[in-house]
């Protein structure tokens, strides 16, 4: 049973790991292969700051809220393990700021210690009259992706540096299942007008005195189009750009100025911060995550594709819930192919 995974960002690697962990004992012939043209540190996941935080509203998509929760709970459980530092996982507290009262988010009971801001705290942020404080998690792609890669390599998963142009390309030769974790470029493999880039740009600075994340919201301009400051383990990320439909991965001077000015206004001490880098990336945005099976003609045979893409600006936030869901879809494929003689579960 050969499984080809397309994509080596957080979604591809975690889905592969989840499937391997759950099924390699039950399917001795299970072979996983990962195909990607970009590996860490050059994936979209590497550019993200790594803060666990869903969007403000789940638009009634309860499924995604559940996947977010599963991810948070899983990561919280890993916090005390010796692997935490290597994974790039740690706790972080911080502020979400608004210019008017807003309803509590779907994730208020998922994070730790969620509460409204007090008047004294709001004094720190002139121009904002309402906000939240909570403790969440950071999962830095720069560390997490190499950690996932090491775990997968130890388990014998093979990696191939290749730009995949079609499902057929990777599914000859006994590959029964393709896991499509191609993120922004899923549209090249199969047209999907719902998948659009949400371009972001960030400035990396040295500001080690900043211990909190600060995320502002402008309900008119939309998510991530308002300044945010996210301190990591090595540098602090300044951002606030979300350009729907913009495919450019070049840094824009105009966006740089907008980020710098608005973040310095938000947090005056940043004026003294040293800039150490800049990056642009494309959030693979979609009205909802595409996580589903599809039967595809692969030459003379029927193959199964499990799609797992379109995680927008919350890929890290939702990744593990999606990986588990992808693994469940894989399990049902196995059952249908009678690869699983006994379904996993207690023997009666």
């Amino acid at each position, binding site marked *: 049973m050969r499984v080809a995974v397309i994509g080596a960002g957080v979604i591809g690697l975690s889905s592969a790991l989840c499937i391997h962990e759950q099924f390699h004992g039950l399917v001795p012939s299970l072979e996983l292969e990962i195909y990607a043209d970009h590996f860490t540190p050059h994936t979209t996941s590497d550019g993200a700051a790594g803060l666990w935080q869903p969007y403000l509203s789940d638009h009634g998509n309860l499924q995604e809220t559940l996947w977010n929760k599963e991810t948070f709970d899983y990561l919280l459980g890993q*916090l*005390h*393990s*010796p692997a*935490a*530092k*290597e994974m*790039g996982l*740690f*706790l*972080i*507290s911080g502020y979400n700021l608004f210019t008017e009262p807003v309803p509590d988010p779907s994730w208020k009971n998922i994070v*730790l*210690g969620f*509460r409204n*801001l*007090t008047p*004294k*705290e709001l004094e*720190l942020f002139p121009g904002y009259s309402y906000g939240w*404080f909570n*403790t969440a998690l*950071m999962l830095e792609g720069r560390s997490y992706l190499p950690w996932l890669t090491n775990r997968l390599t130890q388990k014998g998963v093979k990696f191939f540096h290749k730009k995949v142009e079609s499902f057929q390309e990777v599914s000859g030769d006994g590959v029964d299942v393709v896991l499509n974790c191609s993120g922004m470029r899923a549209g090249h493999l199969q047209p999907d007008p719902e998948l659009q880039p949400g371009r972001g740009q960030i400035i990396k600075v040295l*500001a*080690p*005195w*900043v*211990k*909190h994340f600060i995320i502002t919201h402008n309900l008119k301009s939309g998510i991530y189009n308002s300044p945010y400051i996210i*301190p990591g*383990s*090595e540098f602090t990320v300044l951002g606030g750009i979300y350009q729907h439909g913009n495919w450019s991965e070049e840094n824009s001077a105009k966006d740089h100025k907008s980020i710098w000015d608005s973040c310095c206004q938000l*947090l*005056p*001490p940043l*004026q*003294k*911060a040293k800039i150490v880098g800049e990056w642009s990336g494309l959030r693979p945005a979609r009205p909802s995550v595409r996580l589903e099976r599809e039967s595809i003609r692969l030459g003379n045979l029927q193959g199964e594709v499990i799609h797992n893409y379109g995680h927008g600006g919350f890929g890290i936030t939702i990744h593990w819930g999606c990986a588990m869901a992808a693994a469940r879809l894989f399990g049902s494929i196995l059952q249908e192919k009678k690869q699983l003689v006994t379904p996993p579960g207690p023997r009666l």
Partner: protein
Amino acid sequence: MALPKVAVVGAGVIGLSTALCITETCPSCSVTVLSDQFSPNTTSDVAAGMLIPHTYPDTPIHRQKQWFKETFSYLFAISNSAEASEAGVHLVSGWQVFKSPPKEELPFWSDIVLGFRPMSEAELQKFPQHRFGQAFTTLKCDCPPYLLWLEKRLKATGTQMYTRKVADLWELQGEYDIVVNCTGMGAQQLVGDKQLFPVRGQVLKVHAPWVKLFIRDGDGLTYIYPGVHRVTLGGTREKGSWSLSPDTGTTREIFDRCCSLEPSLQGAQDIEVKVGLRPSRQCVRVQREVLSQGGVKLPVVHNYGHGAGGFSVHRGTANEAAHLVGECISALQGSSLGAKL
């Protein structure tokens, strides 16, 4: 009288902040700081500089609260300004956890720090040995940066600073009109204060930049305080110990206690061990005194004995000491007028 000449003895956080307050309240004064040690060799340099007050048994609570409030406001403004990074002043959130119920549910300072509330059940799950907790956001003054920033502000006002060991306050009579005694542990010998005693503290300063939250055990012995570049791991409270040498067994023990609160600290690098003697007293001595010897008078303002709470109340006590210096000046001017008539 001509420009009053004030000598501030001591260049830790108390000496420097008191000197600064004096230049602010009495711009016509000439202020000089004298100390045998300057940053990075003061007791303040060892401290984490966390604004979590120590309760002095014999100082009225309202006075301690006032000191803390003034200090917190002062630093709060700095933390949000362009000077924050240079001064090493920053906000930090975290948890104080207790194995048994805390003596007071609401400490006197709970409405001065930000967002003080009990920890939720979910937060407490991270600490299986602890059953109660408080979450809040407070300020931290990193040293040496904070002391160096104070020195810079002082120099800008024309304040002179000299390395000098003052063995007796009377040495300064004649050179200076008023002496301000901010000598911390040194006051025991300098003014013979037997109520002052050292409480030895050993700490580790480590590189663990992923630690963004503070964690403190309510017993005050184990704490993890993330600073700008290093995390301070503590600690000990050894009453009566004068030893400034790090103890290796203690280092191991502090590290283990902190790792049990925050396991990721196992990966901490570059462990530096430091020792300081908290200049402890039942109440902080902020007081005026006129020393007298052979018909000669020497006005003295004392500001020492802050023990474990120096950073938490430094600006408040400095304000009070500066006010007392103002009283000394008025008294001197009054008496010199009297002498003229």
